[in-house]
Structures are given as structure tokens and as C-alpha cells.
């Protein structure tokens, strides 16, 4: 969610819908009932804006003004329905509500809960959206889509190669993405390195984790003769364990890296982008090209494709299948870790970030053809574009739904995916 918020800051500020609302439901411990929120316009807090709270259709409860960080909070006497209104006259010049008819919001506060209320404000207010016709947004959305698609592709390539070489549908792949981000956060914020060396170390950690996972866990299961469906369910269990280990040690609240988080956007024609995102995209393209070339040109890459094609035949022609699989795991985990770091630079580090994109990664992999590395790349780019461009027609919050629906439709009409070889899938 946050990624889109950063990318779309040019038009609308503060789109922390999911974060904001989930914070509302999770903050039951803070004592009495209250409504609160943060006013943000294009990433900048908006101070001194008056907020009035009334019981629905009744007496005023209280009013406040937003502080220097844009935060405001009004305590209410108990659970019930309230009207929260923002005094548009107190907004600074040039800033307005994105939806002028949402100056007053009717909300439900549950007893014991603090409810977060979101006013969408942006430079230029309502005009910021209206002057932008649907089609004017296409270049920016397409750019964001390619950016997100490349991140998905980095995770998808490893997932697809692991599937191709071992047959494992790895539901714990998202946790490798998260590991990259959390390790980078540790080296960057806790240890205090600059983000660039921290990211390199984190990539090594993710790769090492992939290697160890295969060396001591999946390899052991393969030798035991555990079935593929059984291994898939094991990976679901492993994902639960890893994700909640992250929750245990990293806690639930999203965090930011120390470097490159606040940058002034660049204006490239119709597209606005931060320098960090551009560098990230360059890294993505370099890594994906390098992996692609390695698969096509090197001996090891050819061996990998041979194993993905037919492990028994590859083994009988002298390829060390286990070694190939181990390298695939290591490289796949490392690039998934890089994907996590780049994703976290655009959103934030969060213990379930990998799980949140896992289904989109699966969508990319299946769209391109399970087990094919290049299919994963093409499929992921399509998924990324789909997600962003679908917001032209469907609500922002539902953008992932479009990609998941495409997944189901592709399975209906071309189950082997775009680049996949026709084979029996049913």
C-alpha cells in the first residue's frame, strides 16, 4: 500500500488507508475511546487545521487542531457513532480536500477503541484529481507498474527456478523477501552502516539462508522421499514459523530505513519519481539481465535449465543435480532478498511484507508459466502493470484483486502460462 502512496504523492497525499485503519483496530490498549488521525498532504504534515467532533446528530464532543506533525486526537465519551468534520477554511493556502463532499465523515467508534479517521488532502485539493483526466495518469501508473513488476519479478524468478528444479511450490518464498528487508534494516539502523553496504550484507544473509535451508532442510526432505504436496504444506508451516519469528523479534509496526527515505521527487516528463526508486529499478534490471544471461550463456545456467527440464536426464548426463539445486536456492534467495530491500525502500520494513506480495508473485509465476525463468519475468511485469493500471477503474484498495483475478482467468484459458510449455496440469 505504501509504495503506491509514495508514487502517487504528486496527486494525492496520505493514502495510508490500510495502515491507518488497521492502526485504529489494533490500538485498544491506549485507554479510553478517541478519534484521531494524521493530516498529510503530498508527504508533508499539515499543521493547525481545526477538527470538530460531534455525536451523530447531537451535541459537540470536542475540537482540536493538528500539531506540527499533522497529528490530531479528540477523546470521545464512549462507543457510538460520531461526526468528524475538518474545517476546510483552516487548511493552508493551496491545500484542499481531495473529496470536498467528505468534509464531514460519519464513523463508528467501538468501546475501548481509538478510531483512526482519514481525511485525504492534497495540494490543489479536489482539482488535483479533476484536472488529471484518467488517461493523463496512465504514464505514471504504467511506470509504477513496471517498477513494482520488476520487484515481483526478482522474487518470482527464484520461486520459479526452485519450482522448476525441485518441484516445490514454496509458500515460504515471501519470507525470504522479508528477510532481506529486515536484515538490511538491522545493518542499516541497528548497526549503523550506510544503506548500500547494509543492503549488500543483507543480500549475503538472504543467500546464505537460502543455501542453509536447502542444505539442511529441503535437501533432507527430498532424500527422505517426502512427496511434493507434503513439501508444499511443510513450506506453509515454515512460512508461519518464519513470519512470526520476524514478528517476535522485529515487532509489528512498520519501520523505515535510516537513509534515502525522504527524497525530493524528480520530474521526468509525465512521470514523477524519487532518485532512490530510479536507482532501485536500475539494480533490478541489471540483476534480472545478469541472471537471464547466466541462464542462457554459462555452463551452470545451461545445467540449471537442463535440471528444470528433466532432472533424471540431467543427472544421467553427468550434471550434479543437487549442486545445481543448491545454487538455485542460494541465488534465488539472494535476489528475493534484494527484492525485499528495494520494496522496503519504497514502502517500509514490515514483518509480513513478503507474505503480502507472495500471491502476486505466484500470479506472476503462473502467468508466465510455472518453472520458466523468463516466463516469471514477463508474467511479473504484466502483474505489476495490471495492479497499477487497474486503479483507473477500480478503487485503490482493491488493486491486488485485479491481478489475482487474472491469475484465475489465465488458469482457465491457458493453464501453462504465456511462455510455459503445454503440459498436463489437471
Amino acid at each position, binding site marked *: 500500500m505504501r509504495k503506491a502512496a509514495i508514487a502517487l504523492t504528486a496527486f494525492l497525499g496520505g493514502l495510508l488507508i490500510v495502515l491507518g*485503519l488497521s492502526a*485504529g483496530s489494533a490500538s485498544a490498549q491506549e485507554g479510553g475511546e478517541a478519534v484521531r488521525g494524521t493530516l498529510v498532504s503530498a508527504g508533508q504534515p499539515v499543521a493547525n487545521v481545526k477538527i470538530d467532533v460531534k455525536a451523530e446528530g447531537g451535541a459537540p464532543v470536542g475540537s482540536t487542531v493538528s500539531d506540527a506533525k499533522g497529528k490530531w486526537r479528540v477523546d470521545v465519551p464512549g462507543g457510538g457513532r460520531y461526526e468528524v468534520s475538518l474545517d476546510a477554511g483552516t487548511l493552508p493556502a493551496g491545500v484542499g480536500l481531495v473529496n470536498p463532499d467528505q468534509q464531514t465523515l460519519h464513523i463508528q467508534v467501538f468501546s475501548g477503541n481509538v478510531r483512526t479517521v482519514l481525511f485525504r488532502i492534497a495540494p490543489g485539493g479536489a482539482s488535483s484529481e479533476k484536472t488529471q483526466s484518467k488517461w493523463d495518469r496512465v504514464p505514471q501508473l504504467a511506470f509504477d507498474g513496471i517498477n513494482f513488476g520488476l520487484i515481483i519479478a526478482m522474487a518470482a524468478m527464484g520461486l520459479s527456478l526452485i519450482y522448476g528444479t525441485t518441484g516445490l511450490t514454496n509458500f515460504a518464498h515471501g519470507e525470504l523477501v522479508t528477510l532481506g528487508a529486515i536484515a538490511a534494516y538491522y545493518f542499516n539502523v541497528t548497526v549503523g552502516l550506510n544503506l548500500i553496504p547494509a543492503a549488500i550484507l543483507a543480500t549475503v544473509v538472504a543467500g546464505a539462508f537460502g543455501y542453509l535451508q536447502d542444505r539442511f532442510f529441503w535437501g533432507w526432505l527430498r532424500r527422505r522421499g517426502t512427496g511434493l504436496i507434503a513439501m508444499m504444506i511443510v513450506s506453509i*508451516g515454515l*512460512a508461519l514459523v518464519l513470519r512470526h519469528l520476524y514478528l517476535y523479534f522485529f515487532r509489528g509496526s512498520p519501520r523505515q530505513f535510516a537513509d534515502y527515505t525522504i527524497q525530493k521527487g524528480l520530474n521526468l516528463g509525465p512521470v514523477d519519481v524519487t532518485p532512490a526508486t530510479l536507482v532501485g529499478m536500475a539494480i533490478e534490471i541489471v540483476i534480472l539481465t545478469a541472471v537471464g544471461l547466466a541462464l542462457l550463456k554459462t555452463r551452470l545456467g545451461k545445467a540449471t535449465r537442463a535440471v528444470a527440464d528433466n532432472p533424471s536426464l540431467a543427472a544421467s548426463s553427468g550434471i550434479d543435480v543437487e549442486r545445481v539445486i543448491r545454487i538455485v536456492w542460494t541465488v534465488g534467495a539472494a535476489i528475493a532478498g534484494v527484492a525485499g530491500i528495494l520494496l522496503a525502500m519504497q514502502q517500509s520494513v514490515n514483518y509480513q511484507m513478503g507474505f503480502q506480495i507472495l500471491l502476486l508473485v505466484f500470479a506472476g509465476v503462473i502467468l508466465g508459466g510455472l518453472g520458466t525463468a523468463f516466463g516469471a519475468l514477463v508474467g511479473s511485469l504484466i502483474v505489476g502493470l495490471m495492479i497499477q493500471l487497474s486503479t483507473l477503474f477500480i478503487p485503490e484498495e482493491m488493486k491486488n484483486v485485479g491481478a489475482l483475478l487474472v491469475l484465475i482467468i489465465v488458469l482457465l484459458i491457458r493453464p501453462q502460462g504465456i511462455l510455459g510449455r503445454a503440459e498436463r496440469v489437471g
Partner: protein
Amino acid sequence: MNWDTIFSVSIEAAIGTNAVIYTLAAIGINVQFGYTGLLNFGQAAFMAVGAYGLAVGVATWGLNFWLSICIGIASAVALAIILGIPTLRLRADYLAIVTIAAAEIFRITVRTSNYRDVTGGTDGLQQFSGAFFDINPYGKGQYGVGPVSFDDRTMWVLTVGWILVALCCLVVYLLMRSPWGRVLKAIREDEDAVRSLGKNVFAYKMQSLIMGGVIGCLGGFIFALSTGSVTPDSYAPEVTFFAYTIVILGGAARVLGPVVGAVIFWLFIQFSDQILRQAISAGYIPNSVMDTTQVGAVRFILVGLGLMALIIFRPQGIFGDKREIALDAR
């Protein structure tokens, strides 16, 4: 450490509403996965459509309670058909991905603020269970034996819930002894063999998916009634993973497997939870190692480890038969 509380809370969990909800979800999965070999990882969606059918019917459209229950069941049947048509011809791993995606599509859609008028967005819906508690035969008060007790509303939910569990077990028992049940088990073992006998495998799989989904949707009703509310995020994918752990723990393809699995699962979860919480508040576990907000994460870690260990070392669970577990790729 107050051992009385630890034991009474654990026993209450083992026979309480969570155990009922997850037993029903697990019985549904047992029909699909245990008997037919279908990897439906979207059971949370079946529970959610049931719960939302009921809640939207009463709270949003102002319909009669029982009519809304019918809407919930009809929605679960419709979901099974919509989900089944594209996916039942696919291999098991594809089916798993697609069903989990479908469950997420449903959850994201109902929590979207654009449909707040109908589904209540992230807040969900409340105030739909009045008619159910109007016919509550229990008078106000606490009911129980010794330290284990429930209030009148919970008693009524539990009574109805365990009756539903018993009925579902009976239906599953009778059906699986019938020719229909034998076809399902044959599909699990060898789909092509069944096809060669002239059976319509797709239709049987669809019937199994619908039946499991409707039983799951009963679990959704109990969930909604026991909390008096439906919220989208109570139907996250973890619900399905828990239910799978329960099926495998009790023993897949056994009528009473899910019941035993759910009771043991919740007994163990609540027991470990209570011990950790009490040990933290008594100071046996220093706050630097673990505080009470981290106990929730430990629960999921234990479930994940349990699921992995069961599948690797004892896929047949407590009662199952290893030869009957559909865990090999086909």
C-alpha cells in the same frame, strides 16, 4: 503461577467456541482434502461468505434471520461452484494457489471502503444475532462444572455448535460409507481409474467442494454469532492453515479426526498461551526475553512447527492411516 486458571481456561478453550468453529471448518476440509484429495486452501473464504451472508442479510438488508442463514449457505454453494469450475481440473498445487487467492480476493473486497454501506468495510458488521439469542433457552447466568464455566449466550452458541458438529460428523460418516463416498476416496487414490469406470470425476469433485464449503460456512455462522460481529480480517489465510493443522493432527479421512484435532489443538494453544502469559506476569520470563505482546506470535510459531513436524514425521496424525493421506504429487 495460578494453575487453576491455566487449566480452566485451557479446558474452556478445548470445548469453547473456537474449538467448535475450527471443528466445522476442519470437517469441511476433511471432506475435501481427507476424502477427495482436493487441496482447498480457501476455507476461510467459505466461512467468510457464510458469516457475511448472515450479517449482510440481517444488518444491511433488514431481512429475517433464518432467511439470512439461507443466503449464507447459498453464497457458500455459489462460491464453491464459481471456484470449482476453473480450478477442479487443475493439479493440486495450482488448486491450492488459486483457492488461497480467491479467499484473499473476497477478504480484500469486503474490507474496501467503497462497499462500506454493504459490508461495513474494515469495521465489519454487528447487530445481526438478535433473533438467534431471542430463542436462547438458557436464563441469565454462568453455567459450568467447577472452575470451567460459560455465560448463557456462549452456552447457547456452544449447544447449537456442538449439535451441528455431531450432525456433520453423522452425515460424513453415512456418506463416506455410501457408494458416493467410495467414489470420492477412489478419486483421491486414482482419478484416471475412476474416470475409466465412467464416473464424472469433475461432478464428484464439485459436490465434495460444495459439501466441504457448506460445512465450513456453518463454522462461519458460529464464528459470527459467538462474537456478535463479522470483520474481514478474522478470515485471513491463517484460519485455513490452522484448520489444516487440525485435520492433519486428528487424522485426515477419519470422521472424528477433525473433532479430536480441534479439541487437542485449542487445549494445547491456550495452555501454552496461558503458561507463557502467567510466567511473564510472575517474572519467570524476563521482559527482555518475551513480553505479553509477543505471546501471540509464539502461538503461530508453535502451530507452524507443529504443522511441519506432523507432515514430516506423522502425516496420518493421531487416528489416520498413512496409506489414505493424499500427500503425493500426481
